[in-house]
């Protein structure tokens, strides 16, 4: 890529977009549940504490009825040599990177859905199968999904996976923040099993305070950046790290919510159906006038 980053273009795009439509994204009407509660939960992932034991991978599979295998088999660290992505067989994976500042230990990064505050998947889904719940989870409804995979094209973190090998009822697979557990106040399976304090679950605003505190107390240990505090409008899952997030394969995303531009265009075109109806009236008018003119011409000829 040349000097300019895609983010710059996106920034400009946002500016053009809002000029082009002149409407804000907040005028949504028909749509899926998309609650942004004050007390929404989140998880703070401290990659400097993570030891790469991959117990979370096992617990996650176990909690979602995916073939999990034996917990002992996860001790094999060979698998950390390749970079993996969450997919239909594993909703979360841990990747390992070379050590960061002031430490000789490798950096381990757990990857899963970020549970965005303004999720692109919720905005995009054609039938509204995705929703943002009050406790912060972004979940997916199998009874609605038509399998169009637009959510996958939309997600800026490239998270949703799809069961391409199934002819009937293929599922969209992604971390659901263990909604079945968290809705009853239980901890997510991965947070529950984590043997060190790499995963902290709690109200998002508390987590931000904790994260700031850790950075303040240990400025040598952390880079001064909480990933997810502002990225794409904020996410429920947030990260601390000892090196730049770019080096840990996090995409460089701006602060604007991913669905912002497309929603404002969408609502601009539709704005309470005024533009389509006006266009209809305009065309009807033209049709009537040209017809009248033709008739008059014909009458004159006779």
């Amino acid at each position, binding site marked *: 890529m*040349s*000097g*300019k980053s*895609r*983010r710059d*273009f*996106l920034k400009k*795009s*946002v500016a*053009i*977009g809002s000029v*082009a439509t002149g409407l804000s994204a907040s005028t*949504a009407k028909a*749509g*899926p549940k998309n609650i942004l509660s004050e007390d929404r939960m989140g998880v703070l992932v401290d990659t400097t504490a993570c030891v790469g034991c991959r117990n979370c991978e096992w617990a996650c599979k176990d909690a979602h009825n995916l073939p999990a295998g034996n917990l002992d088999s996860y001790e094999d660290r060979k698998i950390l040599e390749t970079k993996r*992505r969450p997919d*239909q067989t594993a909703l979360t994976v841990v990747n390992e990177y070379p050590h960061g500042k002031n430490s000789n230990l490798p950096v381990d990064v757990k990857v899963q859905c970020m549970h965005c505050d303004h999720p*692109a998947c919720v*905005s*995009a889904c*054609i*039938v*509204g*199968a995705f929703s943002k719940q009050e406790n912060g989870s972004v979940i997916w409804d199998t009874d*609605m*999904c*038509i399998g*169009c*995979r*637009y959510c*996958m*094209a*939309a997600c*800026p*973190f*490239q998270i949703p996976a*799809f*069961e*391409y*090998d*199934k*002819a009937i009822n*293929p599922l969209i697979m992604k971390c659901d923040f263990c909604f079945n557990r968290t809705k009853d106040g239980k901890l997510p399976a991965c947070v529950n099993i984590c043997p060190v304090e790499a995963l902290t679950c709690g109200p998002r605003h508390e987590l931000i305070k904790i994260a700031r505190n850790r950075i303040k107390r240990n400025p040598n240990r952390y880079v001064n950046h909480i990933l997810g505090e502002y990225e794409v409008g904020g996410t429920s899952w947030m990260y601390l790290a000892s090196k730049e997030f770019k080096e840990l*394969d996090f*995409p460089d*995303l701006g602060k604007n919510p991913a669905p912002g*531009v*497309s*929603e404002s*265009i*969408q609502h601009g*075109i*539709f704005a309470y159906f005024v533009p*389509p109806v006006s*266009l209809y009236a305009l*065309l*009807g008018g033209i*049709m009537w006038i*040209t017809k009248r003119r*033709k008739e008059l011409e014909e009458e004159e000829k006779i």
Partner: protein
Amino acid sequence: MSHELVNPVPIKHKFFTPGVYVLIVIALNGLVFLMGRFFFGLGAVTNLNDQYPWGLWIGVDVAAGVALAAGGFTTAAFGHVMHKEEYHAIVRPALLTAMLGYTFVAVGVFVDIGRWYFIWHPLIMWNGNSALFEVGICVMIYMTVLYIEFLPIVTERFIGKVNLPGLLTALNKPADKILRLLDRGLSKTMFIFIIAGVVLSTLHQSSLGTLMVIAGPKMHPLWQTPVLPLLFLLSAVSVGFPMVIFESLIASRSLKLKPEMHILSRLGSMIAPLLGIYLAFKIGDMFIRETFVYLNEFTTASVMFSIEVVLGVIIPLRMFLSPKVLKSPPLLFTASALVVFGVLLNRINNFVVAYTPPYSTESYFPSFGEISVTVGFVALLVLAYRFIVMNFPVISLPGQQTAQPKKYTIRGVEK
């Protein structure tokens, strides 16, 4: 009113020719892979994966299909809304192309979505924020409108000619009555549908452009712009007439008819300004966002973008400005084919080439199965077109008064 020009008749010609057999083989090959998709899932036939959720089928069957069927609404707007009756001869072929085109778009969607049996869900499950929802609903309604617009051609074919076999002969009279009733009702209300068709087309042609906006930085900046909806609409409008010319010249060649050059040249003369507007917005957008820096690099994206703009817009634009091109069938055909190619490539670029997800490990190229299905659909479409123009009054033969009574020649335009 100039009835000599509008004179649609079923074309008499042999259906089966060597070319038709080739098309049948291509279509059957596609159907074989299609069965694979339904029995073994999308993964068995396509190269799609978690990195590239959308591929050839969405880019070509759906996005390009919708764009290339734009001839239906541009000619309807021109012929009916603006009452340019000289052009009525091409309204019906364009309508047929649009109807078949949208039918195949719908089939394309049906094949591509993982849960095809839930294709009706958007009718009752709404997400007004989703560009895809808007496209889906508009395409569904517009397809219905196209079928309604085509109905008069069917009634015209059968009125006074209903001839049911055997025991059903008793029903001939009532059937004829129903057809006449339908015909009368339709010609009184057709203008409603014609305008609705134009509005619906404007909406979903542009929303198709909004689709990829949400992909944000996953899409190459040469294409990713908030004015995508406008670019999609402008390109659809400018490909409408070239597509009509393109297929009209192919049809007259294959059915051994004299090309309607007097209409086609006049249509051709209107393409240059439309292409010019599209080009101006495309280049203007590139300069405002300063994306031309990417053209200095030699990448798939920059090459594809250049081909799309130079071969698909600039060269045909120059050609359509020349009177010589407008008068010569081969040159007019070439210029139109270039525009069609340009828009096809633009849709492929937007949906496939421009899409580079952050964690892609390999790039996407359609599988043999995907290509077979797409090509098979095109073959089926051509066969359906051929069958319909041979059995229904769609194509006009200038000069021959073999048509139906005048009353039925122009729909929705009461005299």
